[in-house]
């Protein structure tokens, strides 16, 4: 994988001016779909750790629709909806693009599937 939405959801801007709470905004150029083994146990566990609003926003940018609008609406026993969630979280993969710090405007490019989060000397 390169950058799946699960990874994006864990990430924040490394800029010193940024709060460590807001998601980075995805600019997607090349996106691919992966196949990852459906693991319900992991999925249920990780749902509690997600910034759900950030996940929905990022999913929308990557054209993933029909996701529950809150974690309370998730029916963990409904396999079809859990598989849909699995797909959006684990199988939609940004290969090229950027992650943008919404507080500073700083762009962190994603090239060859690798987000470049290095800060420049004058940003330290």
């Amino acid at each position, binding site marked *: 994988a390169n950058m799946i939405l699960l990874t994006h959801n864990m990430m924040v801007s490394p800029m010193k001016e940024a709060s460590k709470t807001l998601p980075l905004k995805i600019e997607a150029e090349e996106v691919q779909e992966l196949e990852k083994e459906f693991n319900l146990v992991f999925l249920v566990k990780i749902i509690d750790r997600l910034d759900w609003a950030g996940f929905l926003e990022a999913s929308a940018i990557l054209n993933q629709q029909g996701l529950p609008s809150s974690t309370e609406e998730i029916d963990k026993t409904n396999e079809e909806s859990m598989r849909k969630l699995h797909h959006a979280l684990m199988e939609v993969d940004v290969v090229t693009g950027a992650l943008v710090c919404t507080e500073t405007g700083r762009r962190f490019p994603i090239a060859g599937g690798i987000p470049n989060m290095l800060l420049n*000397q004058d940003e*330290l």
Partner: protein
Amino acid sequence: TNSRMREIQTTLSERALELLALPSENCMLLDIGCGSGLSGEVITEAGHCWIGCDISHDMLKVAKSMEVEGDVLLSDMGQGLPFRPASFDGAISISAIQWLCNADTAAANPYRRLLTFFTALHHALVRGGRAVLQWYPENPAQMELVTSCAMRCGFGGGLLVDYPHSTRAKKYFLVLFAG
């Protein structure tokens, strides 16, 4: 030889995972200085999900070519870790953190970089999460510097030495507990 190196790194990774003492499978782990993804593959084999960070673009490209399961980021641990608080159940690092002690540029201050790293690591772990960092301390002073920085940033734990009586085989692990 290259395959001997890989064997050592794999063994170190397995030992680090063992020392993490994770409560279950299906954990979310951080691999610090993940390099070509060798330690990451050990994590995948153990049934966990992982994200890796490394400062070497060349090494990360190798990880990509190996099609490792984890996503990897180009990032300098001395600048912090770009993650939300309490993202990870645990963290491992194999043969990487000694690089924090280098002062490559005039601007780089090892002590400041160590503090930045350990502060970020502490925040990135869930409460009660562990970090196991295998490394090669250059000398006792460096060992003291790194260990004391970690403690200063709120970690409990300490230094574990495998094969303490063998100069050749001796391995150091910083075993840290977050809150």
